[in-house]
């Protein structure tokens, strides 16, 4: 328990800026979304009509919404799993070596700083069907690459661009986790004759499971919400709806389709999902922390 100061008014003064910003730019829009979700508004915002839960009913009977949900799940889990496996591989290798660890780390972490939209553009040029070197190479190998037409290929492109950026983040956490594994445990196993692979799977990997779980949540959250730029800069949700994730759909329906009620209903659903994920993450973080 921390020792506290007795002042009564001061804490409110200290909290005021944060509460104001939160109220104006978070609670107010959230409330607006909630309200809008129950109305039907014409595209110019001139008239609105209360329609109760109809927006939600429309949403949950719309096959496109379920398709978008599925797209989001496929996309998010692909990004999380590919990104985490590659990062784990690199971290295990970096943990093994003695010389040049910092140099490798430096050369691996910088993509973290690249904006998702830029990552999308960078990979786009490599995969552009008419001039991208990778696309042309795939063509010569017999794979007809055209992410403008093929939904699965478009998905692969956005997964690659989003994963690329996330590898550095996962790498750092796995490396930190690996360095926290007690050396004595590994040495004991080595003396007992366990091979490096066996040691990894029976000792190191189980000890990494908290890190892995944490990264899974973080990566899913990242893929859910922060990859908007990747998708918007490369595929714009297409072809068809094949790369329209839930967050992209909120934007697309609201700003492009001008379906404000529908977009608001989607915002409300998303906020509920985020709330749930936050609680999971918070429980996890709280459990791990020991306050001194």
């Amino acid at each position, binding site marked *: 328990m*921390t020792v506290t100061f007795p002042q009564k008014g001061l804490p409110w003064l200290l909290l005021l800026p944060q509460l104001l910003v*939160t109220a104006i730019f978070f609670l107010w829009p959230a409330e*607006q979304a909630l309200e809008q979700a129950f109305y039907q508004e014409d595209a110019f915002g001139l008239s609105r009509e209360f329609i109760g839960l109809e927006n939600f009913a429309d949403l949950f009977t719309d096959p496109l919404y379920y398709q978008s949900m599925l797209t989001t799940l496929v996309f998010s889990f692909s990004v999380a799993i590919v990104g985490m496996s590659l990062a784990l591989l690199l971290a295990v290798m970096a943990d093994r070596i003695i010389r040049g660890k910092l140099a490798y780390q430096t050369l691996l972490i910088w993509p973290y700083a690249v904006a998702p939209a830029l990552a999308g553009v960078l990979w786009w040029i490599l995969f552009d069907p008419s001039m991208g070197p990778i696309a042309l190479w795939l063509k010569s190998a017999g794979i007809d690459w055209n992410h403008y037409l093929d939904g699965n290929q478009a998905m692969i492109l956005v997964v690659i661009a989003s994963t690329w950026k996330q590898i*550095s983040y996962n790498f750092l956490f796995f490396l930190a986790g690996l360095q926290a594994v007690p050396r004595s445990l590994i040495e004991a196993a080595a003396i007992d004759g366990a091979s490096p692979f066996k040691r990894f799977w029976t000792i190191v990997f189980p000890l990494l499971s908290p890190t892995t779980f944490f990264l899974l949540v973080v990566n899913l959250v990242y893929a859910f919400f922060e990859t908007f730029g990747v998708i918007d*800069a490369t595929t714009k949700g297409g072809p068809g709806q094949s790369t329209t994730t839930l967050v992209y759909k909120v934007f697309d329906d609201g700003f492009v389709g001008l379906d404000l009620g529908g977009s608001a209903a989607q915002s409300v659903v*998303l906020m509920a999902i985020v709330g749930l*994920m936050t609680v999971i993450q918070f429980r996890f*973080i709280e459990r*791990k922390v020991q306050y001194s």
Partner: protein
Amino acid sequence: MIENRPWLTFASHATLLIGIALVALPVWMALVASTHPASAFGVGHIPLWFGGAGAQTWGTVLFEKAGNGVDTPVWFMMLNSLIMALGITFGKIAISLLSAYAIVFFRFPFRNLCFWIIFMTLMLPVEVRIVPTYEVVANLDLLNSYTGLTLPLIASATATFLFRQCFLSIPGELVEAARMDGAGPWRFFFDILLPLSRTNIAALFVILFIYGWNQYLWPLLITTDDAYYTLVMSIKRMLSVTDGDIAWNQIMATTLLAMLPPVAVVIGMQKLFVKGLVDSEK
């Protein structure tokens, strides 16, 4: 290393080098592409080695206009990005330090409610509630302004949460001692708390700067006046040309310039950045 297995050490280095090469591949290609004239990008043809037009492309993009429908030079948009990134960074750190201080070191009614209200915003990015937030900002007449670019993005609690964690780990005896020596809350804040959280602040600075610099959708929506264009969002405007070919050389040069500042910050402040990330887990 437990035992000496030269082939495994070799394999480790090899894997890491391949990993680095793959990670660097798109940037390498962008660099090469930016050194060729726009005419070099035809069907079935992308240059694989440096050309001679690099200095010219980079010069045009940086000082004249980025091209492809964006008439603002990159240096100017860099300035806007910098204002936005620093505004978000300093704003967030300032309000978060104060509110975390209030929540940890004072007891007052509704303390927990306040914490939860702030905490709710922790992971909710602006993209999720984009339409209503846009409307609120439009109602407040903040479109096309630096205030509109920064303030709405300050409303997230990541920093508050980190400072709370950091303050909670400060031993009570320290506060007790300060109080016995007659230090009031402000003196305690400036003389003890701030110096103790110096490294946390620096680490957060790195992370928030990158967050602010990399904003994409928000500036894209609320800036229609090119005096407020930021660098990352301008890429989108450069890509959506309707007439004629996309000038890939200019786009690639702009992309590289847009990633330069945050990458420099991450590499230059690597220790703080890593600490900031790994601490945020705890």
